[in-house]
């Protein structure tokens, strides 16, 4: 059986599982559609949250980001997990106690203002749509690479699958499919990592293998890796630069993570406030299973590439064109990997041309530049089973895992978008008299509309798709997180303060991003070149979230002190949100 057939069988089986769950978990009420009837076990919800959160970026790209940069990109590991501490202690339990269905609903009710509600809906839609584009393109690419269908067909299959279980089942269907998707993706991620760790270090746990001694060299793995990369002119793997910028970026990712609406709403599905606290812990357990493995996958893949390119060590000859491993050829076809024998010696020299002293070394040894000319970082995870020479079914699992990661996140985002439209815009703002059945229908139509929009954007990704991820995190950090937190921790915070703060954070962040990345990300319209010399206090646009958050807090504080305190019933509402008792009956629907 050839690899493509095997991939189709494994991916097909995983899709059948999702469809089965969709039929079993149909939603009959708005409570089921928006919050899975609030009956989800905290461990199950933790697993669903992990799948909801870990996107195609976590599954496919993160290990590559770490592999090629080393220590400095630990920011992604800490930032994307540390946000859960903030969420567990500052947001999730209280928002669960509040007992409504969406994030804008809390903002609208707490600040007794439809303006605040609509601003929150806008932030939510910008954040979620930005995010969903990446998931749809990721799914399309996975289809085309592993199943040999074209990207368009792949995208339609992905959309149709999400359509079935998200429109039918709402949050209930999505929750239980996400559990299945988590299982698929974690198995797919772990198996190749275990084998690679065994091959290199003899330790079956990749996270421990990373800090182990390699029997082949008798040195710790990281020492060998540091030696190889510095000999070839690359930065040392275990050291970094500009610690303050690293700290700021980590903070930006943490606050942004805590303010992402599609993750927050997952905590509305558990029965009690205490369950919301436990569930955040379980979510991080399931996330950590991948995040503790990812740095090992990154370092080991980097080492494998170095030794593949320099089989006799850096002092010896580079790999000959004819001796390149098979996986090299498979991936060259995709254009993600490319070699060019510039000096015509039949060998492929891989080194950093601009590294210190490399020009002299190259002249001495007759190198005419780096000959591994293309190396896409995403290959690391996708080609891992081939690099470790694992059987075909493991490759098929990676395909199913990548799709599971993309689809589970897409479904969570689509639910956040559709519930903001049907619940916050239609039910709360435009037509408060809509019936339960009418709202459920509106929710399903909004979901279908959101899927069509996401598919369209996936087929025609705007050129700025990559940059807008910075926008999503920046906005979540600068607008939603501070406003939600103040709504719980400050009884004095009023409508005028919160709205002004949210707008200040939103506008300041957008202005800063647009200054360097172009107005609305249109290339060529940026006012300053996107280089370190132009940054205000040296802060890159991607690191701006915490500054926007500080602006939000400061403006909200000043405006609220200059205006009247919120009415008594709102202060009572804040009191009640802080006390767990009575969460079950407080849904208000």
């Amino acid at each position: 059986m050839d690899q493509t057939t095997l991939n189709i069988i494994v991916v097909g089986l995983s899709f059948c599982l999702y469809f089965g769950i969709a039929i079993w978990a149909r939603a009959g009420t708005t409570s089921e559609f928006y919050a899975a009837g609030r009956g989800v076990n905290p461990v199950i919800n933790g697993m669903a949250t992990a799948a909801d959160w870990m996107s195609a970026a976590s599954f496919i790209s993160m290990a590559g980001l770490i592999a090629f940069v080393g220590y400095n990109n630990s920011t992604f590991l800490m930032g994307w997990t540390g946000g859960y501490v903030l969420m567990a202690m500052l947001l999730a339990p209280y928002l669960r106690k509040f007992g409504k269905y969406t994030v804008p609903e809390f903002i609208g009710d707490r600040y007794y203002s439809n303006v605040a509600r609509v601003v929150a809906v806008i932030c939510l839609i910008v954040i979620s749509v930005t995010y969903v584009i990446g998931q749809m393109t990721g799914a399309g690419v996975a289809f085309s690479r592993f199943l040999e269908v074209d990207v368009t067909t792949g995208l339609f299959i992905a959309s149709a699958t999400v359509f079935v279980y998200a429109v039918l089942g709402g949050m209930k269907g999505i929750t239980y499919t996400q559990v299945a998707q988590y299982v698929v993706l974690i198995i797919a991620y772990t198996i190749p990592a275990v084998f690679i760790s065994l091959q290199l270090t003899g330790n079956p746990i990749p996270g421990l293998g990373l800090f182990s001694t390699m029997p082949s060299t008798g040195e710790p793995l990281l020492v060998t890796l540091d030696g190889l990369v510095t000999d070839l002119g690359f930065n040392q793997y275990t050291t970094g630069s500009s610690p303050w910028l690293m700290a700021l970026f980590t903070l930006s990712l943490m606050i942004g993570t805590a303010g992402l609406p599609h993750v927050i709403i997952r905590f509305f599905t558990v029965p009690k406030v205490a369950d919301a606290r436990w569930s955040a812990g379980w979510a991080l357990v399931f996330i950590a299973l991948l995040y503790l493995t990812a740095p090992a996958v990154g370092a080991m893949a980097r080492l494998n590439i170095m030794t593949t390119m320099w089989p006799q060590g850096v002092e010896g000859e580079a790999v000959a064109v004819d001796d390149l491993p098979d996986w090299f050829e498979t991936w060259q076809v995709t254009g993600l990997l490319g070699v060019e024998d510039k000096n015509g010696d039949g060998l492929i020299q891989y080194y950093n041309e601009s590294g210190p002293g490399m020009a002299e070394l190259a002249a001495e040894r007759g190198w005419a530049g780096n000959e591994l000319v293309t190396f896409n970082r995403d290959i690391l995870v996708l080609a891992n089973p081939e690099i470790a020479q694992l059987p075909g079914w493991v490759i098929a699992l990676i395909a199913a895992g990548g799709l599971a990661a993309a689809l589970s996140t897409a479904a969570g985002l689509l639910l956040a978008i559709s519930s903001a439209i049907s619940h916050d815009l239609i039910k709360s703002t435009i037509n408060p008299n809509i019936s339960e059945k009418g709202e459920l229908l509106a929710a399903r139509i909004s979901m279908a509309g959101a899927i069509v929009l996401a598919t369209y954007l996936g087929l025609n990704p705007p050129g700025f798709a990559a940059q807008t991820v910075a926008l999503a995190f920046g906005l979540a950090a600068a607008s939603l997180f501070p406003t939600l937190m103040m709504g719980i921790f400050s009884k004095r915070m009023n409508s005028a303060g919160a709205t002004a703060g949210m707008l200040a954070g939103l506008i300041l962040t957008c202005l800063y991003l647009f200054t360097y990345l172009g107005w609305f990300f249109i290339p060529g319209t940026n006012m300053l070149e996107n280089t370190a010399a132009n940054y205000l206090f040296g802060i890159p646009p991607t690191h701006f979230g915490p500054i926007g958050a500080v602006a939000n807090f400061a403006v909200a504080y000043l405006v609220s002190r200059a205006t009247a305190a919120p009415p008594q019933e709102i202060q009572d509402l804040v009191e009640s949100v802080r006390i767990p008792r009575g969460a079950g009956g407080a849904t208000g629907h």
Partner: protein
Amino acid sequence: MAEKSDNNAYWSANLRLVTLCLVIWAIASYGFAILLRPLLSGIAVGGTDLGFWFAQQGSILVFLVLIFFYAWRMNKLDKEHGVDE
């Protein structure tokens, strides 16, 4: 009023606990893993130093312990102050 003052005591206890946890959260990640890493450079871990371990794994493990500790302490506080469900 008795209930109100007890609720206030519950809330202050919660704020103290959150502050403690967030101080540890910040020391593990921003401290040990990044800004204070030079101070830990003498402690070797698997071919590198403790700061690198904190950046790639240690901070995540600390976050995990913190969330479970917080959940356990808060659920106990809920019962002590009679506000559990």
